[in-house]
């Protein structure tokens, strides 16, 4: 049952109006930007709530639909700008606008006094617009518009402080790595259009795809794998995860909003949206799950040895996204989306808390120069502690429920992969350890910051701490949300056995306890272990030198190729061909050129000869 409405377009239009305001008037009216920036997102949240209430009043499986205008007509193919609001969209839009609003509020405090204040909010609102288009789109083409839009905003915001070359480089890296994934995504779309088109279905509507799964069945595997390539780019999975840790060059609210809570989950959303298609290709599901589990483990290991507070969180995000893909791969879509939601709460909270710490310490990001902040920043500490317990999976906080459902799904779901489930359990322990390490290094022990920094140390203003508190509440109670039941439309199968829950809980506490022992009780031990594991520890700290590997395998060969082009192919082959053609014409024309002497009498003679020839011809005929 689909109900037409004109409500949905306002969800997208409101943040877009915000963008226009910031672009044209923002510079002159900074005070208004402070209100309008978060305000339009709050308004969009209000519209989303209204839409969700209307959806709730409808029978299960219903959807709201808003056809704005006919967008593309190319022969038989046509696509509309149209939005679709069902349970999955409702969950996503609520997260995007809800968490997004809190982060907007926080940004008012965090970016206070920045020269690019209005520009920042223009980008942030633009991002919200694009993300809402992505999740609301009723066809894959419009989804792709949002997909590229959030990629653009990610680039703009990573390089927000573009005066520093490394920030600009990080933005460029994110953009280029995402292009690789997007190429796969586009190829997947082409394959869908082509396959459906040969059967006379010229549409990319999600509903059209779901109705004609039998047509798509023969190409389901390549389509799913190609779309997953897009997801690995956007959602930072192996092998395209390398851009996300560098993306931490952007302002911290950006890391929270784009690189933790919303944009990086676009890949998860896309696969969840097309889960019916993926169900046709179990091999593709296995690939998704394997990549997810491998990424979760790999990034989790790297996170244990990072010293930059934001990098720990970045690798943690990559790892948690791996969980979500594991959940998708074992066909527990509901659990994956559930983890997406809870992760949005506690990871946004962790990032904003880290931002608060960085703010208080005057820009310091190195965990080795923090410590003892517990008493100096009590609100930040309390909220960060909640987030840490939530991500570690301590019951009854939100992370516990969503993570358990994914892991149990790996053992007993619709498409079980127990080996990956075991990896997931190991990562659960790792997660607890590195999250605990971050918390203990930053907030416990003695303060290792300089006297100067300690002197200026302060708790962040209310505009920053209030969102922290709200997010902390959400991180606590988020586990009670009936997300899986909503998304899958089935009764919530919370049939995780008690024994399994106990194992997961013990792993969480074990990881936290280990972190406490290593970093508070015996702070000398980590150094000893690192020394023992000499080579391996360095390898982990250097992120397994994947960047260097890509540099050697991809970047430098491409540069070498460009060099060859610039110094050999271009001047010799291209210029040579052009100049050669000119030289050939010049050389051959040299002979005939001599006939033109410039002497009029020679020309007159040729007239005469010509005239005589003509006369002779007509006379002799």
């Amino acid at each position, binding site marked *: 049952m689909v109900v037409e409405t004109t409500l949905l377009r306002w969800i997208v239009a409101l943040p877009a109006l915000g963008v226009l305001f910031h672009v044209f008037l923002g510079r002159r009216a900074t005070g208004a930007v402070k209100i309008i920036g978060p305000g339009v997102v709050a308004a969009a949240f209000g519209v989303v709530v209204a839409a969700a209430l209307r959806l709730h009043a409808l029978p299960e499986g219903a959807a709201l639909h808003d056809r704005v205008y006919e967008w593309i007509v190319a022969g038989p193919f046509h696509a509309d700008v149209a939005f679709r609001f069902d349970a999955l969209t409702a969950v996503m839009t609520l997260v995007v606008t809800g968490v997004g609003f809190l982060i907007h509020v926080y940004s008012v405090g965090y970016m206070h006094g920045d020269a690019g204040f209005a520009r920042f909010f223009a980008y942030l609102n633009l991002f919200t617009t694009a993300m809402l288009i992505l999740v609301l789109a009723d066809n894959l083409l419009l989804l792709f518009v949002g997909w590229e839009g959030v990629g653009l905003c990610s680039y703009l915001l990573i390089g927000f402080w573009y005066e520093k070359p490394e920030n600009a480089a990080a933005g460029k890296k994110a953009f280029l790595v995402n292009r690789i994934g997007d190429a796969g995504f586009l190829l997947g779309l082409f394959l869908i259009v082509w396959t459906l088109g040969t059967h006379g279905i010229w549409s990319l509507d999600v509903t059209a795809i779901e109705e004609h799964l039998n047509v798509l069945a023969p190409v389901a595997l390549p389509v799913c794998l190609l779309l997953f390539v897009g997801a690995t780019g956007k959602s930072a999975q192996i092998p395209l995860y390398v851009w996300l840790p560098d993306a931490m060059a952007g302002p911290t609210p950006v890391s929270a909003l784009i690189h933790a809570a919303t944009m990086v989950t676009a890949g998860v959303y896309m696969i969840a949206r097309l889960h019916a298609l993926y169900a046709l290709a179990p091999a593709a599901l296995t690939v998704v799950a394997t990549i997810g589990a491998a990424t979760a483990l790999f990034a989790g290991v790297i996170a244990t040895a990072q010293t930059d507070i934001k990098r720990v969180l970045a690798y943690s995000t990559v790892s948690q996204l791996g969980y979500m893909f594991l959940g998708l791969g074992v066909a527990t879509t509901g659990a994956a989306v559930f983890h997406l939601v809870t992760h949005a709460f506690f990871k946004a909270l962790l990032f904003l808390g880290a931002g608060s710490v960085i703010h208080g310490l005057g820009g310091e990001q190195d965990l080795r120069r923090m410590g003892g902040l517990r008493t100096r920043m009590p609100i930040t500490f309390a909220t960060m502690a909640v987030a840490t317990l939530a991500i570690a999976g301590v019951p009854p906080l939100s992370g516990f429920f969503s993570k358990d459902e994914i892991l149990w799904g790996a053992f007993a779901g619709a498409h079980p992969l127990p080996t990956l489930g075991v990896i997931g359990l190991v990562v659960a322990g790792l997660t607890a350890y590195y999250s605990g390490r971050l918390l203990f290094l930053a907030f416990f022990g003695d303060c290792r910051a300089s006297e100067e920094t300690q002197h200026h140390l302060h708790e962040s203003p209310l505009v920053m701490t209030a969102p922290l508190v709200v997010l902390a509440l959400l991180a606590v109670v988020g586990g009670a949300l009936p997300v899986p039941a909503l998304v899958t439309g089935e009764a919530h199968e919370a049939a995780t056995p008690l024994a399994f829950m106990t194992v997961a809980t013990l792993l969480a506490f074990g990881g936290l306890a280990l972190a406490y022992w290593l970093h508070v009780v015996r702070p000398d031990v980590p150094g000893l272990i690192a020394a023992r594991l000499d080579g391996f520890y360095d390898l982990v700290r250097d992120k397994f030198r994947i960047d260097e590997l890509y540099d050697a395998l991809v970047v430098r060969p491409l540069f070498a190729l460009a060099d060859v082009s610039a110094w050999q192919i271009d001047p010799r082959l291209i210029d040579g061909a052009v100049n050669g053609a000119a030289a050939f014409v010049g050389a051959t024309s040299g002979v005939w*050129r001599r006939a*033109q*002497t*410039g*002497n009029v*009498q020679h020309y*007159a003679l040729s007239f*005469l000869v010509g005239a005589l020839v003509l006369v002779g011809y007509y006379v002799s005929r």
Partner: protein
Amino acid sequence: MPTPLGWYLGLSAVIFTIGVLGVLVRRNVIIIFMAIELMLNAVNLTFVALARSLGSLDGQVIVFFVMTVAAAEAAVGLAIILAMFRNRETTNADELATLKW
């Protein structure tokens, strides 16, 4: 008895040939110019002779046109020669050969 047509045509051919040779052989631009006038008048003579012999006025009318064009051509041509002489201080056709590749 009137003069036969052949005489007129013969005289005209002789004058035209003198004109052609003058254009091709002489080097002074003004002489070349005069030779061109000679060719035009040779043609005029042919027109008039044939008009009279055929009893038609068409040839005589065309002669007026030719004379008009010749007058215009003389004005333009002399102006060009004058301009060239001011610039190059010569009227030798061999030295006025720069208008080429």
